[in-house]
């Protein structure tokens, strides 16, 4: 069945695929997940704020971002950020920010909208009495959030946050539109250079599947381990 295919090309390109491609993919995933969760948590707190302008802004942001295709946002940011940077720094012309930084900012801001919804559900899952108990002990809003609500919300939501991060891991492949060499980009370049698209794309699919599936299984196991004793 596989006559005419050359799977040796995979073996030969492994260092490039993983040391260049996968390292980039993992970096982008981890950094934008971390940034997205921090930003998303802030947006969730804003959205739950009783101060209307804050909650309206946060709600608008989340709804806007979630209604846009990711590829469009990636493109849009890549061309927009240089102009914004020019405006911020008062530079004479648009400042190119580099594909990686552009992708990182895009993914952080895009994923923040999704993480925000997860954290919002997490914060709302904490009983109101917990907040009251914190206030009754003399804590400020920041302390109640930081020591009582968010740690519990984060733990309750960790499996969902990680599942979203697995989706992010797959979504980072969309940076190919900026001709960045992520894992899929690397595979694609080899495929074009050596005319081996079937082998390379098959291999890429197997790797994405293996990584995602392994992580999902880990999340499922983690779920039972981190549950708060009640």
């Amino acid at each position, binding site marked *: 069945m596989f006559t005419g295919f050359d799977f040796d090309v995979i073996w030969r390109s492994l260092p490039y695929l993983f040391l260049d491609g996968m390292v980039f993919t993992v970096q982008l995933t981890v950094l934008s997940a971390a940034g997205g969760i921090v930003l998303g948590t802030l947006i969730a707190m804003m959205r739950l704020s009783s101060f209307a302008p804050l909650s309206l802004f946060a709600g608008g942001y989340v709804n806007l971002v979630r209604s846009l295709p990711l590829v469009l946002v990636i493109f849009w940011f890549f061309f927009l950020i240089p102009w914004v940077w020019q405006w911020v720094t008062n530079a004479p012309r648009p400042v190119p920010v580099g594909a990686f930084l552009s992708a990182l900012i895009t993914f952080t801001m895009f994923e923040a909208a999704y993480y925000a919804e997860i954290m919002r559900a997490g914060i709302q899952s904490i*009983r109101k009495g*917990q907040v*009251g*108990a914190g206030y*009754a002990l*003399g804590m*400020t809003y920041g302390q109640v959030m930081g020591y009582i609500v968010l740690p519990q919300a984060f733990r309750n939501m960790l499996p969902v946050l990680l599942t979203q991060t697995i989706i992010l891991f797959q979504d980072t492949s969309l940076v190919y539109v900026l001709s960045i060499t992520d894992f899929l980009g690397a595979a694609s370049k080899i495929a074009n250079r050596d005319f081996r698209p079937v082998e390379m794309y098959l291999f890429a699919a197997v790797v994405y599947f293996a990584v995602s599936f392994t992580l999902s299984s880990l999340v499922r196991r983690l779920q039972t381990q981190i549950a*708060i004793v009640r």
Partner: protein
Amino acid sequence: MIEIDNISKWYSDFQVLKGCTTKVAKGEVVVVCGPSGSGKSTLIQCVNGLEPFQQGDIRIEGVSVGDRRTDLPKLRARVGMVFQHFELFPHLTVIANLCLAQMKVLGRGREEATKKTMALLDRVGLKEQAPKYPGQLSGGQQQRVAIARALAMDPIAMLFDEPTSALDPEMINEVLDVMVALAHDGMTMMVVTHEMGFARKVAHRVIFMDKGEIVEDAPKEEFFGRPRSERAQLFLSKILQH
């Protein structure tokens, strides 16, 4: 020490508190009782500003709770509160539950906070449970930890919001024992409860509320001996019958 001055509170159109006025003196134990929905829990939650109110004022050692300029966290740190559902922090051990506010609010060092914590846990008979998580304790034990947590802040007064209502019957006494001991130590206490045995034993005054009003506010002997209002008589006959 606690002055509740003509406070009223509305949930949109519904008035939950109607011009409630009373005082709790230093060292006094005041029990607040009444049928469910009478506003007694709301009243006690207003005392440390957990529930806002629209009219009147509450002063704790002269500091106004209703005044926007009042540093509420600072005021609350001096008033202990015990909740119906304990509200221990489930993600923290018993020690951490007691140490958290001591360190973050009062600025005590870990060593000092831990020392205080262990002394208080000893006092409520739960020293061995210190490294456990709240979920591993019984309801009665959790409520005793919650009392210890409030005491760790060296409060000038303690508020109890139905502290035994969520407990299984066999655990009520272990919590009441701690509260009785506290009363005997001279702690200023305001206690919302249906435990009339507790009221008879340690209360100085009993407040009876119905439909958001303070119907009766009398010394214990008077309240149990010959309640003036019909509503209090009816309430007492209902809960003391069995």
